[in-house]
């Protein structure tokens, strides 16, 4: 029997059939979010970083490869891949290679639970509303914290395996810094959990339908704790002491070159994106349109009317995340680096106590005032 090539119409029919569509949706989500994270956001952010840095320092920045220099990151990526895979003599080989992988994997794992749009049936194509999130975990928030806490191993191992005193110093600083600020971040997040009554990232967004948490007193305090913790967790200026060029060369990745360095670099930007997304989900209503009840439904936009209707809320969410990514860059090229004792003092003596007081405040408000 001669096989006939499938026509486009038949392929579409198969894809849309009830048994196949959930799978297409499932793999589509994975493909979409990881292409976006590793293929679009990270390279574009590296370009944005360099252009904004240049703008702030009154330079031009990369503008030769592609329109506005946008393909510069692609060119750099190819360069990193083709570079000789250098391995200094006295490193611990296995851990030296493991460390960059340990940086990239948790970054990708945390990215897998970031919700990026409202629940949708794709305009009635799916039998029941599905979440625009790769892994719909009901412990999503805790999962992000748990995976985020693993990121420190890559840095600790990178420094130790490099067998270089600058690297070890960088690792030590990074470990202490990340343990300290995880605590502060946890305190901020507990307030959010108390206010929304859930650790499910979708429920947290739903709880903000009427008022974004940033416009509540405890929510605002939590936000003020969360943002410095966010910078410290990603080891970025003003808290980039693990890298501190002036004193430690570049700290934990001094000995790394080529794509092994590229993985550290990539992981940093993916982590920034995850934390920016968390910030938007916790305090700025996720993909909701405007605070005070002006949701998409509130202004008459049906998020589930057509199969592509989720794109508008998604784009709005992406815009909010992009703003926080810009803040990362903005702060990096504006503020000087803290001293290490200042960093520790800020974390332990300021942010953590305020965080604990904030938790007491939220709990008190909910118990005795019935709301916040």
């Amino acid at each position, binding site marked *: 029997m001669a096989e006939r090539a499938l026509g486009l119409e038949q392929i579409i029919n198969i894809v849309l059939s009830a048994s196949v569509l959930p799978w297409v949706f499932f793999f589509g989500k994975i493909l979409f979010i990881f292409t976006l994270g590793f293929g679009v956001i990270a390279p574009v952010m590296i370009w944005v970083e360099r252009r904004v840095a240049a703008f702030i320092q009154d330079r031009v920045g990369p503008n030769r490869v592609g329109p506005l220099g946008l393909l510069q990151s692609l060119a750099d990526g190819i360069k990193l891949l083709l570079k000789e895979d250098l391995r200094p003599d006295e490193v611990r080989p296995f851990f030296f290679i493991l460390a960059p992988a340990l940086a990239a994997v948790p970054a990708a794992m945390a990215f897998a639970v970031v919700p990026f749009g409202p629940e949708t049936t794709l305009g009635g194509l799916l039998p029941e509303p599905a979440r625009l999130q790769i892994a719909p975990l009901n412990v999503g928030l805790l999962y992000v914290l748990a995976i985020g*806490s693993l990121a420190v191993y890559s840095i600790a191992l990178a420094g130790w395996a490099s067998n270089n005193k600058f690297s070890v110093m960088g690792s030590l600083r990074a470990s202490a810094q990340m*343990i300290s600020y995880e605590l502060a971040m946890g305190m901020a997040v507990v307030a959010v959990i108390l206010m929304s009554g859930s650790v499910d990232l979708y429920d947290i967004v739903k709880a903000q339908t009427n008022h974004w948490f940033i416009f509540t007193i405890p929510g605002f305090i939590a936000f003020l704790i969360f943002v410095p913790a966010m910078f410290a967790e990603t080891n970025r200026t003003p808290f980039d002491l693990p890298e501190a060029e002036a004193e430690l060369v570049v700290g934990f990745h001094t000995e790394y070159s080529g794509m092994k360095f590229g993985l550290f670099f990539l992981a940093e930007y993916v982590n920034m994106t995850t934390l920016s997304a968390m910030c938007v989900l916790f305090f700025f209503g996720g993909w909701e349109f405007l605070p005070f009840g002006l949701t998409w439904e509130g202004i008459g936009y049906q998020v589930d009317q057509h199969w592509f209707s989720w794109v508008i809320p998604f784009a709005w969410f992406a815009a909010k995340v992009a703003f926080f990514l810009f803040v990362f860059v903005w702060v990096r090229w504006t503020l000087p680096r803290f001293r290490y004792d200042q960093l520790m003092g800020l974390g332990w003596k300021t942010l953590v106590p305020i965080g604990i007081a904030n938790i007491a405040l939220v709990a008190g408000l909910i118990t005795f005032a019935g709301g916040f």
Partner: protein
Amino acid sequence: MPDLHHILFFSFAAIILFSAGMVAFRPRPVESAMWLILNFFVTAGLYVLLGSHFTAVIQVLVYAGAIMVLFVFVILLLNLDPRELGTEGGASWSSLVLFMGFLSFVLVALQLATPDLLKAPAALPEGSTFGSVEAASRELLTKYIWGFQLSGIILLLALIGVGLIAYRKAKVPQVKGAQA
């Protein structure tokens, strides 16, 4: 025909036993620590198989993410010279094999003695909230409230103790780090 649940359980169990062995037999403390982290991580996988996502995430968050970071931190701070560590206690494969063999023997003996013990637990009924954050915290804050509070107090005491020890050390006259 073993189903996916069984395959996952036995692969996780094998990895847990193997990594536990490696923790004991690797010569360098950092390597041991890494194996222990793998161990904790896969143990979290076992909790997921049991349907308890909350316990799994807390396992990773507390053990793999916090306690082991501290371990690695201390090991890096000490930065032991390989010569100081000595050669004894190095990975001897024969001892590892003996260890694994002993564990397998225990497992087989258990299986023969009590066949019900190693049976996979029945799948959770549809819509069950077992292991969810709500269910776990309700139990913790009602049924196990005293144990929960008591462990909190113990941790608080440890915290105060650490503070006291560190405070006493700081009183030794020294040049302030900021001005050095």
